[in-house]
């Protein structure tokens, strides 16, 4: 049953509506009499200009890691810079025994799946399809990522970097394995990076994960672990460890 699409009628209405120009806003005032309207439109500012207004980010990688760590602490995410892959694996094993993990999930990834397999626990890999109910039973998900955003403390994930859409959100503990070269200063550079990595074959899903899942819907009181992971742990490996 094909319902006729109304796009033609809607586009006609839009074009008719736009016959009359709209006033601009300048210095906090709207120029209703259009006296400031020169007829020449100046293009709106672009993302490189945003940097001067958004929260500031230091220029060096070390500044950015420090800022990421501060943001992560505030977001109640567990950020762990480590010296080597082995150290990450050791700390992960400690997490597994502390939290009594019985099974984990991961995906084929240059380092995440390797670390996951070292745990010696049953490990579900999402790459060739999986049953939702099975993934839901896993205690932790171990994934890679595309970038860490210093300005906001966010982890950027996409289908290829994090084993699909569900892996990084369904299990109650999300472990991210990142490396130093993946630190970017801000959201604008993260989006520019996504463009460089994928355009025009964009992954169908990408997400900025900023701390563990949360809600304030009951009396505006913060509760962690609403529907997504209750815990988020981010390991930062040095360069060249992938």
């Amino acid at each position, binding site marked *: 049953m094909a319902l006729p699409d109304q796009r033609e009628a809607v586009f006609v209405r839009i074009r008719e509506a736009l016959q009359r120009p709209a006033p601009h806003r300048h210095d906090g005032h709207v120029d209703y009499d259009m006296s400031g309207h020169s007829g020449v439109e100046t293009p709106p500012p672009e993302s490189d200009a945003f940097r001067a207004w958004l929260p500031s980010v230091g220029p060096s990688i070390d500044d950015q890691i420090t800022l990421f760590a501060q943001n992560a602490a505030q977001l109640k995410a567990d950020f762990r810079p480590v010296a080597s892959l082995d150290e990450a694996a050791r700390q992960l094993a400690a997490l597994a025994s502390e939290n009594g993990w019985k099974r984990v999930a991961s995906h084929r990834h240059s380092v995440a799946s390797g670390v996951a397999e070292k745990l010696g626990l049953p490990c579900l890999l999402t790459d060739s399809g999986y049953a939702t109910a099975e993934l839901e039973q896993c205690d932790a998900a171990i994934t890679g990522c595309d970038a860490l955003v210093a300005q*906001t403390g966010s982890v950027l994930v996409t289908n290829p970097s994090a084993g*699909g859409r569900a892996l990084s959100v369904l299990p109650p503990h999300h472990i991210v394995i990142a490396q130093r070269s993946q630190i970017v200063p801000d*959201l604008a550079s993260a*989006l520019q990076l996504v463009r460089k990595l994928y355009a025009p074959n964009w*992954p169908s899903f990408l997400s900025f994960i900023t701390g563990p899942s949360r809600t304030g819907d*009951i009396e505006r009181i913060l509760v962690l672990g*609403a529907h997504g992971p209750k815990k988020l742990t981010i390991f930062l490996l040095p360069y060249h460890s992938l």
Partner: protein
Amino acid sequence: MITFAKDFKSAADRVTKDLRHRGLIQRALHSYEVKRDEFKGRYQNWNEARQAASEIKWEAINHLDKYLQEFIAKLEARGTRVYVAGTGEQARDYILGVAKENNVRTIIKSKSMTAEEIDLNEALEHAGCTVFESDLGEYIVQLRHEKPYHLVFPAMHLTREEISDLFQKELGSEPTNSPEELTMIARRVMRQNYCRADMGISGANFAVAETGMISITENEGNARLTTALPKIHVAILGIEKIVPHLEDLALFLPMLATAGAGQPLTCYNSLFSGPRQPGEVDGPEQFHVVLLDNRRTELLADAEQRDSLHCIRCGACLNVCPIFKNVGGHSYGTTYQGPIGSVITPHLRGLQNWKHLSSASSLCGACTETCPVGIDLHHHLLHNRRNAMHEKPLWWEKIAYAGFVFVMRRPTLYRIAGKLGALFFPLHKLVNGTPLDPLRSWTKTREFPAPAHESFSEYWRKKKSAKEVNRGTP
């Protein structure tokens, strides 16, 4: 008409007298304000950021045809089915059609005010589907058979005790007054629903024209699960959600979070550009994007108020509005509450029926000042009042103003009217505030000022003659 205005007045009267309710709302909004100011303070220049956000939205809205076309073409090229709906009914029918075609029984929904606007849940339930709202606040108001109280904080009018009672009654859970335990109850219920739902429905916060992506902002992870697990994903959004470029989100995502929820960035900001693509391990087989007009083009045609289509539904104007804080969200009787609701509802649902909302304002301008995209909200309230008057002048107001003009132009008549007013004023005391009082709509809650003992012109004359007397005696 009038019933909407009457309902608003009586609801507003009732809520304003409910001090417990007002206390609850004001406490919640106070904690929001503290956080908002903290994170606004981290911006190097919030005002410049606002100006830029306003310019980007101006560009998108004033070239809506171009950007919308680009958005649709990019989505369709990657296998998304796009449906453009002229009315709410067409949007509902399309989504019902998709549900029927695919034998959908269970639907999981993440928060969408656009879906609220067209009463989508009611239509789906009527067709035999079971719909679960997955956002915690939305789930709570759904269990109460209520509309969202606030477009960002749907259940902010309820205490944890009320929510615990509700969960006991509806879900058979144990009583608790811990927000954490209450959240976990909803989490457990919803986990089963994500896995068994045949269809996921979401809204969208932004539509990126250049890349053909929708952007969804949330904190709980429910939208991510809604868009990851079911075989079909339907997103419904207004045609005004457009931004031109992907990188524009670097400005809008943090501003939306800070203005809307007092956060530096919300927990999940996800972009979707199609159904599951070749080589991807999961995601829906079908992705439908429903673009809704529903009289947005009428708002677009009003060049003066076109900037109200810049709105990113952050709710900041509600949070600072003295009217919202006192009358509460449900009193409005609209999908969109607060100043933005008062501005746009007359365009979406009819000026004469909804003009009263534009009068429920102190015109303090707090909404305009806080709006992250610089919508001239409080002036638009005035524009609505003026347009309502021009469209349908009130006969008694016309007579009253004609009389006023007649008297004001004749000084003698004006003096006599003043004297008569002062003479009869003591009689007003007898009826003050009672139903017999002709000034009742004023005197019900306020004092009517007593006339001065002497008018200004009398005072002036006296003073002048005194001066002349003084000058005359050296």
